[in-house]
């Protein structure tokens, strides 16, 4: 069983932040209306579910990057009892939430789930997700046309004579 140590994921985070910055620069070249239309689309975001990194997935899904916010509260375990079933939930005090997405940085496909929140639906979601290994879990909340995120590392190891 390979274990990701903190040094490794820290490095990876740095690299990913770099990628995010590039994406942000790239965004300037895109026609604004296009990304707007895409975010409002009700279709299944096929492309976003093909992206390997969370930065690419967020870019594909929303066409922009998210900023960390302490108004996004994620509830996830320190150590997942099993990577196959990790309960993760999110709530936020942000107004005008239109969607909430869950991503796992180290999964083969980063985007796990994306929920559309119509007006009148509360910005709180709980679900159970798979994690291939120890990783950052990222929650992105789209509110008032902006993206806010929260990140938490969840440790995953499997096997042994447990239970």
């Amino acid at each position, binding site marked *: 069983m390979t274990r990701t140590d903190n040094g490794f994921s820290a490095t990876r985070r740095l690299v990913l932040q770099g990628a995010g910055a590039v994406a942000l620069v790239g965004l300037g070249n895109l026609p604004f209306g296009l990304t707007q239309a895409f975010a409002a689309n009700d279709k*299944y975001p096929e492309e976003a579910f093909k992206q390997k990194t969370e930065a690419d997935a967020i870019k594909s899904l929303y066409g922009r990057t998210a900023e960390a916010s302490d108004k996004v509260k994620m509830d996830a375990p320190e150590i997942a009892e099993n990577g196959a079933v990790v309960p993760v939930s999110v709530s936020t005090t942000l107004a005008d939430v239109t969607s909430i997405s869950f991503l796992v940085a180290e999964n083969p*496909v980063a985007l796990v789930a994306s*929920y559309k929140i*119509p007006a009148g639906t509360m910005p709180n979601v709980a679900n159970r997700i*798979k994690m291939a290994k120890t990783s950052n879990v990222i929650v992105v909340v789209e509110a008032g046309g902006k993206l806010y995120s929260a990140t938490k590392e969840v440790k995953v190891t499997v096997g042994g004579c447990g239970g």
Partner: protein
Amino acid sequence: MASTIRVRATSSGETTEVQALIQHPMDSGFIKDSKGELIPPHFIQQLTFEYNGKPVFVADWGGGVSKDPYVKFAFKGGKKGDELKVSWVDNKGATDTTTAKIQ
């Protein structure tokens, strides 16, 4: 055959809390079977909850959602006895639909 969808929707007067559990393998396409061969992807892509003919919650899922997926959310309104329509479609085009009474 029994429905693949289990829903619990409870109204507190102002809001309705909805929990759903769905029977589905949610194969990501990255896991190997006992013979070492990749199990092809088979997962629910979209799960929709409708109340009064309008969607109150839409889930877009990938293969990273757990087997027999679970989701919980809440929306404003919803009366006891009213119906909530729940339906899903997976990447192979299979679907299931059910209606649940709000308790």
